[in-house]
């Protein structure tokens, strides 16, 4: 055990939540969460519905800022420059430029496949056609979609199948070279075959980027993640290497949830 932990602790950190609390108005949805996110690793968040895992994920790109009455406490230290993502001095737009997100339900814009992928670049003011062409192709290749759509880039994104739409959304969030990618139950609206292709994709993507994924499917967490965090009613109950959390959890609550005795 010690042999394995030694090199892992030396992994570069990508982000670190410190005493993170979150409030929807007066309701406290997250309570003092502390958790590291390692670079080029997949970290999954598991827990029963309403445990705060999506709420936690959405802190990382300040999605909560879109709605009134939300409040953060604590910090998310983003490496290597040690920007506090939650600081009111940091513009949420800057945060979202560095950290991209893939949603629960595929949400391609009602635009062409090309324009969907190019949107992040357009928002950044990129107007050179050749640069956008290259990045769109690279992103679609990374999202394992290029072969299927290269001849119909001008078709509507909504014409694709559900799994292709989700890969299109992954390409959209890849095109801008994010440092951390957030996945909010990305396969919950997909069939098993499309789910398998998304999981394979996530495993490939971690060579380039840190990944934080919320999943309601424990087998999925076990298959694709290097680290797993179990959350319950806004608290981080246990965090550790996925093998350890699933095979030898330290906490009784984690074991009860994983073995299906609860949740």
């Amino acid at each position, binding site marked *: 055990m010690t042999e394995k932990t030694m090199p892992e602790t030396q992994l570069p950190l990508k982000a670190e939540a410190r005493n993170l609390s979150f409030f929807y108005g007066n309701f406290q949805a997250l309570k003092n969460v502390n958790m590291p996110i390692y670079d080029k690793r997949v970290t999954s968040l598991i827990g029963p519905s309403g445990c705060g895992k999506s709420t936690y994920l959405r802190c990382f*790109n300040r999605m909560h800022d879109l709605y*009134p009455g939300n409040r953060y406490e604590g910090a998310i230290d983003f490496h290597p420059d040690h920007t506090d993502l939650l600081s009111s001095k940091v513009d949420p737009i800057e945060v979202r430029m560095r950290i991209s997100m893939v*949603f629960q339900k595929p949400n391609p814009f009602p635009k062409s496949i090309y324009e969907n992928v190019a949107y992040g670049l357009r928002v950044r003011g990129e107007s050179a056609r050749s640069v956008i062409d290259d990045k769109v192709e690279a992103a679609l290749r990374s999202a394992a979609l290029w072969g299927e759509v290269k001849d119909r880039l001008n078709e509507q994104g909504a014409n694709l199948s559900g799994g292709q739409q989700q890969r299109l959304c992954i390409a959209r969030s890849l095109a801008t070279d994010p440092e951390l990618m957030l996945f909010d139950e990305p396969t919950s609206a997909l069939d098993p075959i499309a789910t398998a292709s998304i999981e394979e994709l996530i495993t490939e993507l971690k060579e380039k980027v840190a990944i934080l994924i919320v999943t309601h499917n424990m087998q999925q967490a076990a298959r694709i993640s290097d680290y797993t965090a179990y959350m319950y009613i806004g608290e981080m109950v246990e965090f550790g290497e996925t093998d350890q959390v699933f095979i030898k959890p330290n906490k009784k609550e984690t074991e009860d949830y994983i073995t299906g005795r609860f949740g």
Partner: protein
Amino acid sequence: MNQQELQALRTMIVVHKRWDMIFGLIGILALMIALMTFTALFADMAINGVGRISWEFLTSFPSRRAADAGILSAWVGSVLVMLVTAFAAVPLGVAAGVYLEEYARKNWVTDIIEINVSNLAGVPSIIYGLLALGLFVYTFGLGQSILTAGLTLALLILPVVIVATREAIRSIPQIIREGAYACGATTWQVVSDHIVPYSSAGILTGVIIGMARAIGETAPIITVGALTFIAFLPPAPFTGEPPAGLFDWLFAPFTVMPIQMFNWTSRPEAAFLANAAAAGFILVLMTLAMNGLAIWLRYRLRKNINW
């Protein structure tokens, strides 16, 4: 379940289904009353007026002799007034709707604004006419002109445009918005790249339905001082009194279709009544054409938008 219970169940279903049929009949009856009324009015007008409709009728100015009279100045006036209305109401209404939906915080102030916008849609049009008389004609000195009439009708349909804009924006799923924000877009980028393009079909429909209402409005136009007898056209660009400009026609006196009709119906001669029916027939056709355009545009613009 024994035979008796089964029989009771079947009887109950028959009784319940009878209500289905009764309501269906009531519905058809209600629909017929609405449709028949419109058809009867339209047919009556068509029978009385269709004999008068000819190329000359469309290209002649009004005249003392019913047989020579036409609606040239009226339909040109209506078209120009509608142009001004559209150019004024669309930017104002869309901007207000977008602001209320995408920028304004949801609190009691926006609630009050919302209630007031809905109430404005119910204000009698003559009140808008009086407001316009005081504001545009006397305070701003715009005169009894096409510009004044266009702006008055723009005020009249503004609530319709605002409500249509808000409804169209609300039908955009929140997840599309979040997707755009997650790409790092500012509120303005979300509005200009997504919200307005995706809601344009609904907005246009609302605008055209508002315009179809405005084109038949008489009271506010009379109040701001449209004339009932106009035997000339507003100057085309660069042709009026020197120094002639592009927009001289905005300040020209004018008449519109409903006023021309009103003028003819108040004459004693039967021939003028036929003229009024013919003008009414054309006015209804103009309204139907606008509604048809709205349907076509909605179909065209929505074809590529599905979530």
